[in-house]
């Protein structure tokens, strides 16, 4: 508890063309996986760039392990981060994995040749093939291997698994879990893959139109959303019931989406309502309802 968060973002603002990102306030706790989710163009990659120190903030500040981040500290900071950007770096096109690994060994104090060779063999990457000749998935795997090989404290992964086949995907998820095992590493992952969030994440940071819609512990978020099916009740009868985010009638069944199940179930008990079905909701549906509620709220302003 006493240890400061790996990253603390304070009132970050960044103007991007027509989109204003921020003000954003959040923390990235050590030993945890934080997943950044959101639609295309919601500001995820800009946020990743800011965390990496690539993007100059218009306002606000970033604190690393309790200290304010300065561009002068950059070399130290980069030693600790493994960053996989959304798109491959075209400057590396003519390089081979072994050439880039030699460079990595030169730059990074913690470079681990054994780990590099082990991972290259495990993921079956040709060490002397030019990156431009690789398939999208193979190049992606290599990019991840390259950063894992210098054992950074913090992994910053922007849609790392796009283009990966299902078997490589599973291996990678397991390897990332392995990295997290000692509780000293931290991962920030921007992703559209719901299953990745389910399997890996401890915290969820949900971006929408440049704003932070939710920053929550994953299980709390899932516990806070439930779907109920109720027979013999009109959707209109639930007017004034607490915790109802959405209610619609489909034939004889009313489907209720709740964003406060404890309150709503209390209401059900008091009014003698017995749902025939209760179920948890997948992340994408939770996101859809959050966006709808946010848009309604903004519409009212």
């Amino acid at each position, binding site marked *: 508890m006493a240890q400061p968060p790996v990253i603390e973002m304070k009132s970050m603002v960044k103007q991007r063309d027509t989109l204003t990102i921020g003000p954003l306030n959040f923390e990235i706790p050590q030993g945890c996986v934080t997943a950044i989710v959101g639609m295309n163009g919601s500001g995820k990659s800009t946020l990743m760039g800011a965390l990496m120190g690539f993007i100059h903030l218009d306002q606000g500040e970033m604190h690393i392990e309790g200290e304010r981040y300065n561009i002068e500290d950059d070399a130290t900071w980069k030693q600790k981060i493994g960053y996989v950007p959304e798109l491959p770096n075209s400057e590396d096109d003519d390089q081979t994995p072994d050439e880039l690994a030699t460079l990595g060994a030169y730059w990074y104090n913690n470079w681990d040749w054994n780990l590099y060779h082990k991972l290259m063999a495990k993921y079956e990457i040709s060490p002397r093939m030019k990156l431009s000749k690789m398939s999208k998935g193979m190049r992606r795997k290599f990019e991840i291997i390259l950063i894992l090989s210098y054992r950074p404290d913090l992994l910053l992964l922007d849609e790392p698994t796009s283009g990966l086949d299902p078997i490589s995907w599973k291996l990678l998820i397991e390897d990332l879990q392995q990295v997290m*095992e000692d509780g000293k590493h931290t991962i920030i992952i921007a992703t559209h893959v719901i299953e990745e969030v389910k399997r890996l994440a*401890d915290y969820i940071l949900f971006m929408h139109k440049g704003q932070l819609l939710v920053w929550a*512990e994953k*299980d709390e978020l899932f516990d806070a959303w439930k779907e109920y099916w109720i027979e013999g009740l009109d959707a209109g009868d639930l007017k004034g019931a607490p915790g109802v985010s959405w209610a619609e009638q489909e034939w004889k069944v009313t489907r209720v989406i709740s964003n406060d199940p404890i309150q709503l179930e209390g209401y059900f008990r008091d009014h003698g309502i017995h749902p025939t079905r*209760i179920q948890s909701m997948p992340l994408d549906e939770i996101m859809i309802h959050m966006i709808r509620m946010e848009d309604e709220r903004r519409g009212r302003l």
Partner: protein
Amino acid sequence: MFMPIQVNENSAEPLYAQIKNQLRALILSGQLEVGTLLPSIREFASQLKCSVITVRRVYQDLEVEGLLRTRQGTGTFVAHVQEDDKDKYRKKAVEEAILAAIQAALQVQMSEAELRACFDEMIMRTWDVSSRGRPKGTTEE
């Protein structure tokens, strides 16, 4: 190590409470023996697809209850369980199941007398069935 814990996604009970109750049941019923090393927090979280925060809370709470013990650098173990705690738990588990049955009876407006009769019948059926060597827990329709 694989833990026989199953999260019910169709339950209003928070994930944290589900995991804690099931783990406690495994310990008190003796299915997890004293001294068993539990999975690391991260490993358990990935098995259950939940966050490490939830698992850490469960381990801490059960440690406070005296059911688990954490040794720095080694991991979390099942601690010694008092015999009378086990007895209490056996009774409590059955009581909870009966309570659930009573709730079901109330939902279909069954009277107390009907419920008692139903219960007696079920007991007789179960004991008769097992004495005829049928598998335990199965009843004839």
